[in-house]
């Protein structure tokens, strides 16, 4: 295995709303470049907590999280944001597309705070949409798109800035089986092209598609 790109050492997360709950128990985990990882487990077991920490959306209570060897605990919010915006891509169950903007504009939004000029953002957005085979729907409003198309726009938004890691949280949770298969095939394709893909799911079949399969139960991460 190559050197891990993302590495967790003794990372735990405790939520403290009145009485403390340890959602993630101390965990050591390394993800390599080009991995295809699935994180499964029952709901409330801590898989979203793990994803939030890996995606820098949340910070661990204890332990060290390194990206390419860089310790993230001491990074400022601006730099954490830059990592999320430029190295990571996110796909959510609820798509989170903004109504009233075309598919193309939604894809552009993913690069809004990044270094690219508006013109370059438009180019990259077009390329990403075409990669998702949605070039013909570039000017459609999200409300006119099917669920599968919506999620493909959301994937295009996540990959437009050419990230190194793609985090997907229940990416097919709102889709029927046909669209689910289409989106999963696209994710496999992205992985084949060299992208590191991390998928959180409660679905056993989807979890089985991962080359590396993790399971979270009661805050404890294990391979299966």
């Amino acid at each position, binding site marked *: 295995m190559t050197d891990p790109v993302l590495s967790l050492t003794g990372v735990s997360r405790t939520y403290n709303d009145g009485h403390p709950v340890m959602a993630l128990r101390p965990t050591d985990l390394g993800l390599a470049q080009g991995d295809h990882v699935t994180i499964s487990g029952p709901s409330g077991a801590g898989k979203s907590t793990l994803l939030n920490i890996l*995606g820098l959306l949340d910070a661990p209570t204890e332990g060290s999280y390194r990206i390419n060897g860089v310790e993230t605990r001491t990074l*400022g919010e*601006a730099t954490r944001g*830059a990592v999320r915006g430029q*190295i990571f891509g996110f796909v959510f*169950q609820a798509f989170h597309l903004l109504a009233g903007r075309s598919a193309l504009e939604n894809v552009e939004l993913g690069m809004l705070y990044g270094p690219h000029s508006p013109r370059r953002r438009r180019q990259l957005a077009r390329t990403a949409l075409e990669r998702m085979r949605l070039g013909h729907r570039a000017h459609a409003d999200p409300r006119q798109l099917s669920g599968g198309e919506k999620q493909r726009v959301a994937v295009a938004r996540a990959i437009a800035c050419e990230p190194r890691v793609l985090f997907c949280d229940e990416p097919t949770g709102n889709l029927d089986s046909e669209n689910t298969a289409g989106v999963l095939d696209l994710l496999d394709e992205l992985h084949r092209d060299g992208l590191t893909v991390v998928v959180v799911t409660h679905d056993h079949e989807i979890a089985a598609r991962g080359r590396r399969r993790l399971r979270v139960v009661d805050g404890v991460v294990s391979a299966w």
Partner: protein
Amino acid sequence: MSNDRQARALLGIEPPRFRLRDTVRESSLSMWRHPGRSLLTAVGTVLGAAAFVATLGISSTMGQLVSESFDVRRATEVRVVATDADGPAGWQSPERLRALRDLNGVTAAGRRLVVGETPVRRTMGGEPESVKILGADGGALAAMEPRVVSGRLYDDFHERRASPVALLPLPLAERLDITRTGVAVFIGDRAYTVIGIFDDVARRPEALLSVVIPTSLATEMVGEGGEGEQDVLIATVPGAAQLIGRQAPLALWPEEPSAVRSIAPPDPRTLRREVEGNVTRSSLWVSLIALIIGGISIANAAVAGIGARVPEIGLRRAIGGRPAHIFLQLLSETTVLGAVGGLVGVMLGACVTSLTALFNGWTPVLDWRAALLAAAGSAACGLLAGLWPAARAMRITPVAALQR
């Protein structure tokens, strides 16, 4: 932080950017997402700006009107009366009046004397009409400028000779059944020849209710027991009324100028300022209150909208947006909303002003500074309204984006 700079170099990333162009674009996009709702939210600022522009516009239109009417008529009229009941003897003598007429800017000046209600008859035994008798010399007549519809005015000859001639206003002539000049009327118990009939005067409209006769005859009438009210009437060239008003007492009675006082119309510019000042103050308050209500409604809508926008804000944070980005975007949204509301209001106010002027046949006067102020005020109102919701939205964490 040098640590962060080092980390960014190692990871090959750049710090998040802030571009004003992007912020404004994002704001207008979210505003156009619900154009109707946005306009409804901004209705307070629309009304505030409209009220401001319309009241200012209408008041300055009317102010313009006031000064126009004063310029042509009343602003050329000065009256001089005695400070005490009778005043110094001889203050209206022909020599004194001559000195007054020599003043630069006086076009006509003369003495007048009002005799109380007197019966006027067509024939000695006829039905009497009770009217006031106005004695006026040639100069006063010229200053009043009666518009003669029949016959002619009398002159200094009649005045010197105390010829019994009379000028009748048209309505009275009709009541007395007099249709032509040259006939006689009886004023008191003396016969006068009707020398002219007039239907309008340029100055002192009360003359339209009086029979006008030479002062020499009116003085006699007062001597017979009537009470007399005397003044000197001056017509001036446009714009000279104020000046002549100050000079007239000195010309008429230099021995003791305070023994007589002049009544000149207010300076049209002062008057306009007064009219506008009053209206402007009240319109400012109304507009300010409307703007505050507008601001509250924008703030209220923005706060209420945050709940629905948690996923969007979370997404923005997840893709690298800093809290400052979120803050500035929401602030710019309410500011743009306020500014657009203000612009719509300015147009509305301008329309109201123009239509009011159109229906009244006035020339609309619109001040671009008022329009600018109204739009800027609305934008500032939107900015203030955005502070609180923007500060609240700033606290939304990126984890919120993952909520299902």
